[in-house]
């Protein structure tokens, strides 16, 4: 079967005209997974039978009869999303054999909207990492060059979309875990406002930072999916009751829109600097007014994150005692052990004030930085990662050097803001580069509109890796 769809709307157009059926499309993706997953290691579990059963059910209820937003869209979930009857490992040996009883709210919303689940995606164990190398099920490979990391922690999520193993993939972003792999793999990654999408049923990393988003091939798809996943959930008390905007209405004139470029958000690799400069120039040509701004607490934000996050990690992972479910604590990998100990340390009596409480106060300063910036500008544009993707194994021995890679993504999580990562160029070795647009809380609609306009005027998102 030849693939003649590129996004959700062209896929559904094909369903409408009867060109192909959900079972044809599902088979297309399952075949590709069979062919390429052994190289890329994007999927931990493939749910072939369930996927085909759901596809055949949809075959009998054509789009015309059941026109729902994600009708017949093949999706896959980061292995942190609990799925009823399908094992959920969190990328860790601790939960190697854990099969959950119910679907996470987000999973249920995808399925209710007509999506077909193809399986569960690899990630750094417990979402700890920004390279995809920390999975107890082996590292995921970057489809643009399999010697390189795909970024993390939602490594399989970005790789599955970039390598065309599914159309939409669901991930989580605690400190950049959607934006980083999206930028390293050349796809669109959305981190919504904290509380926009329910966290219920998704294995928690750091509860005050975890944001539930997704990776797609286009901005229009990202907007469509958010219309499905966003919205209040009585099972998550931090989930907002704000009404969900019609995100997929992407028309917007950006003339006079003020876009801030923070002087502290500096990339290090020249290729990244050049690509970002060019993209900002393009935004200016599209009518935006570019203003230099300052987010003075950016360096401290990273240190603040590496106190608050491990503190919450150590609390959330305390429940894995090997008694109620899963294997015992000796099964934790190196990175989980480091973060548990770090968090235990910063929360322990005697160090609590010095570290945890100080970090909470610095978090206020980070939030204030953004508040002051958004008094002057509508959106912020910045690189996602300071470097290009690096080689697998290059930074394994020195965890701190890997932590420092998160400097441009974590402030957004500390302030609970929405951000979208867009493909904005390639290095000379053909490795993707990403730019992020950041907005005030609940400004997803205008983020999508600006991102869409940028996408319409560039062709980066149309380039795909050859496998």
């Amino acid at each position, binding site marked *: 079967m030849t693939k003649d769809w590129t996004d959700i709307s062209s896929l559904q157009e094909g369903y409408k005209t009867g060109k192909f059926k959900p079972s044809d499309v599902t088979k297309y993706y399952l075949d590709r997974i069979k062919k390429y997953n052994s190289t890329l290691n994007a999927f931990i579990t493939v749910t072939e039978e369930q996927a085909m059963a759901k596809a055949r059910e949809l075959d009998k209820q054509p789009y015309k009869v059941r026109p729902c937003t994600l009708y017949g869209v093949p999706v896959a979930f980061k292995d942190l999303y609990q799925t009823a009857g399908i094992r959920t490992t969190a990328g860790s040996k601790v939960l190697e054999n854990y099969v959950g009883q119910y679907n996470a709210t987000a999973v249920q919303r995808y399925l209710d909207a007509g999506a077909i689940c193809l399986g569960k995606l690899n990630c750094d164990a417990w979402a700890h990492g920004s390279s995809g190398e920390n999975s107890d099920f082996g590292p995921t490979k970057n489809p643009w060059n399999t010697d390189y990391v795909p970024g993390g922690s939602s490594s399989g999520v970005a790789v599955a979309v970039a390598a065309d193993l599914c159309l939409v993939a669901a991930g989580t972003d605690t400190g950049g875990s959607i934006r980083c792999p999206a930028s390293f793999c050349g796809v669109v990654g959305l981190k919504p406002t904290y509380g926009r999408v329910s966290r219920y049923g998704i294995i928690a990393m750091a509860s*005050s930072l975890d944001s539930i988003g997704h990776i797609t091939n286009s901005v229009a798809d990202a907007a469509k999916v958010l219309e499905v996943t966003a919205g209040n959930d009585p099972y998550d008390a931090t989930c907002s009751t704000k009404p969900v905007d019609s995100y997929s209405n992407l028309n917007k004139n950006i003339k006079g829109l003020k876009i801030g470029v923070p002087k502290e958000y500096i990339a290090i690799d020249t290729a990244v600097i050049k690509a970002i400069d060019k993209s900002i120039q393009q935004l200016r040509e599209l009518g935006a007014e570019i203003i230099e701004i300052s987010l003075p607490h950016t360096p401290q934000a990273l240190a*603040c994150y590496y106190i608050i996050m491990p503190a919450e990690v150590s609390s959330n992972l305390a429940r894995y005692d090997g008694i109620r479910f899963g294997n015992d604590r000796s099964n934790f990998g190196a990175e989980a052990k480091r973060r548990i100990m770090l968090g235990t340390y910063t929360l*322990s009596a005697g160090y609590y004030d010095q570290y945890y409480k100080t970090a909470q106060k*610095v978090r206020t300063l980070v939030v204030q930085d953004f508040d002051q910036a958004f008094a002057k500008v509508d959106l912020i544009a910045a690189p996602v990662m300071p470097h290009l993707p690096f080689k697998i194994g290059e930074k394994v021995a020195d965890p701190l050097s890997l932590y420092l890679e998160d400097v441009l993504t974590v402030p957004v999580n500390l302030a609970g803001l929405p951000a979208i990562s867009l493909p904005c160029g390639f290095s000379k070795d053909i490795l993707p580069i990403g730019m992020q647009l950041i907005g005030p809380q609940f400004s997803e609609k205008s983020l999508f509109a600006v991102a869409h306009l940028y996408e319409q005027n560039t062709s980066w998102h149309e380039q795909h890796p050859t496998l």
Partner: protein
Amino acid sequence: MAKLAKLQLTDEEEKKYSQQLEKVIEYVGQLQKVDISKVKGTNQVTGLVNVSRADRVSPCTPLVEGYIKVKAIFGND
């Protein structure tokens, strides 16, 4: 710390992690230099307070002689 966190480490792990974590602790220690005398801490960023469900009366299954009739929990076999 490992003991407090209920983790068992080998001697080799203990040596490796203590070196690595020392570097991280030193790095995050830079926060001591930030002036935080006038700021309050942030626990959460949603601005939500006292989240509770609406206190609404919802219909109950029909009463039978003053009792609520529910489905049988145990079968006959």
